[in-house]
């Protein structure tokens, strides 16, 4: 496991490379694309365990933080979807270079899945795995706001001040500036398309969800999309993973299976 900084002086990024610990006949690495904010904090341990297991079976993995998030440079308000899509492409090239592979699978989680779709082109990646992508930006922002309100409402000190103003500049403890907020509001299921010529695996929860409804539309269009149901309900915004599994085995097994599949 090798932590390092990459990117440019103006846009330094942080990543951790899990080099293949065993020889592999496949010339393919995996790039993990984080969700946003508290969801990224929540998924961190899961990402590490997944990366370690993949590396053990010969698949090199890069976990990284977008600019303005995690351990990368930049403040909360420096983040935006277009910049983050560029970061995915930068990380992809860094991964291929460091792992001496020529192809990569991108595994995107929540907003990371949506960002991965925006970053994909005919040149990259070889395949995409999407875990509950955000397909309705307005609903997503409302859910983040609602979570913050619920969290503050259950907290002694803030009980009298539970209102979050509209167009708030924060989401569960992370800053969102107006540019990012506008970009998120523009995420719309009808406009969100799959990249041409790229196979996509979509992980959805058992319950009805925006992602499920969106995938039905894509399947109807004849896209190269395979849908996989995850029975475990992942608590994406749980604080400190109280009462919820940090690394649920069902999710780990499914991701391992999908990411080990040969192209």
């Amino acid at each position, binding site marked *: *496991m090798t*932590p*390092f*900084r990459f990117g440019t002086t103006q846009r*330094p990024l*942080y990543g*951790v490379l899990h080099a293949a610990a065993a020889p592999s006949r496949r010339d393919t690495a995996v790039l993990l694309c984080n969700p946003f*904010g*508290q969801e990224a*904090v929540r998924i*961190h*341990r899961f990402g*590490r365990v997944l990366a370690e297991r993949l590396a053990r079976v010969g698949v090199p993995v890069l976990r990284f933080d977008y600019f303005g*998030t*995690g*351990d990368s*440079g930049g*403040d*909360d308000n420096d983040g935006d979807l277009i910049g983050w899509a560029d970061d995915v492409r930068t990380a992809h090239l860094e991964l291929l270079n460091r792992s001496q592979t020529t192809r990569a699978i991108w595994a995107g989680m929540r907003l990371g899945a949506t960002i991965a779709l925006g970053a994909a082109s005919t040149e990259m990646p070889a395949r995409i795995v999407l875990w509950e992508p955000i397909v309705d930006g307005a609903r997503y922002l409302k859910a983040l706001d609602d979570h*913050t309100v619920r*969290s*503050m*409402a*259950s*907290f*002694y*000190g*803030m*009980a009298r001040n539970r209102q979050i103003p509209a167009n708030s*500049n*924060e989401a*569960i*403890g*992370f*800053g969102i500036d107006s540019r990012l907020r506008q970009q998120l509001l523009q995420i719309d299921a009808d406009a969100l398309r799959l990249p041409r010529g790229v196979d996509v695996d979509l992980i959805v929860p058992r319950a009805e969800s925006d992602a499920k409804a969106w995938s039905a539309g894509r399947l109807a269009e004849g896209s190269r999309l395979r849908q996989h149901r995850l029975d475990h309900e992942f608590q994406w915004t749980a*604080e*400190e*993973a*109280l009462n919820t599994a*940090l690394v649920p085995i069902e999710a780990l097994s499914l991701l391992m299976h999908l990411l080990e599949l040969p192209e």
Partner: protein
Amino acid sequence: MTETVEVFGPHGNLVGTLHHPGSPELRDVAVVLLNAGVIHRIGPHRINVKLARALGRAGVVSLRFDLSGQGDSRVAPDASPHLQQALGDVRAAMDHIAARTSIRRFVIAGICSGADHAYRVAGADPRVAGIWMMDGFTFPTRRSRLVQFAWRIRRRLREGAKALLDRSAGATRDVPDAAVATQRLQRRAAADQSRGVPSPADFARHMQGLVDRGVNAYLLYSGDVFYDHNYANQLRDAFRGHAFAARVRCDFLPEIDHTVTRLQAQRRIEALLVEWIEAWSEKVQARA
């Protein structure tokens, strides 16, 4: 200001980020920022990154790192029991800062379990000149129990009145704040039981020893530990007769939650930490 990835420790298993102001003058203490619970070194809502950058702007070097096995740090090959390993890890962090800078005195800063480690490390290593403990050990008093009881009664009465009004108006209502808040506080109190809280006598003895040695201590309590700590002078009341209680800084900030969620709260915590360090540290020339 520079932020560099650091891999250190006797086995090279620890990963951290060193924040260096890059200025010709530095403060003569460096801050070691610890994990809060299972969260990796960025801290809850990236608070450790924000604290480190605020400290950097004030000329303070800091290292936020992941304890063995957490975040991006690997488990040490000769791993010790958790508390002992944490002590060794923090010592390695101080060693590393000393090797990379001219700083030889340290503040150990942490939230929750991080605060607990700060408390223990300070007693074991003379290089620790300060400890910053947010939501560390709590010591209820008779008054704090009365305050808690009165709050619960007031909240239930308020919710009951609201429910009555809502029913009259035909409105639906949200989950009652009182019940949910009480559950949250009780859950946190229960989690605290697994932390090995020292007895009041042991805590007093430990803190007195630190203070007598010249260690600066800042204990900060959020509204989330309201169940056990809920008024401004509680620490002094709990340790009446112990000299240390008047020589440590202790703030109760009921408007701030345990994981410092709101941005305004984060800025407040940053300002308080910087202000506290500036009050007792000295400026020195950075090593060329």
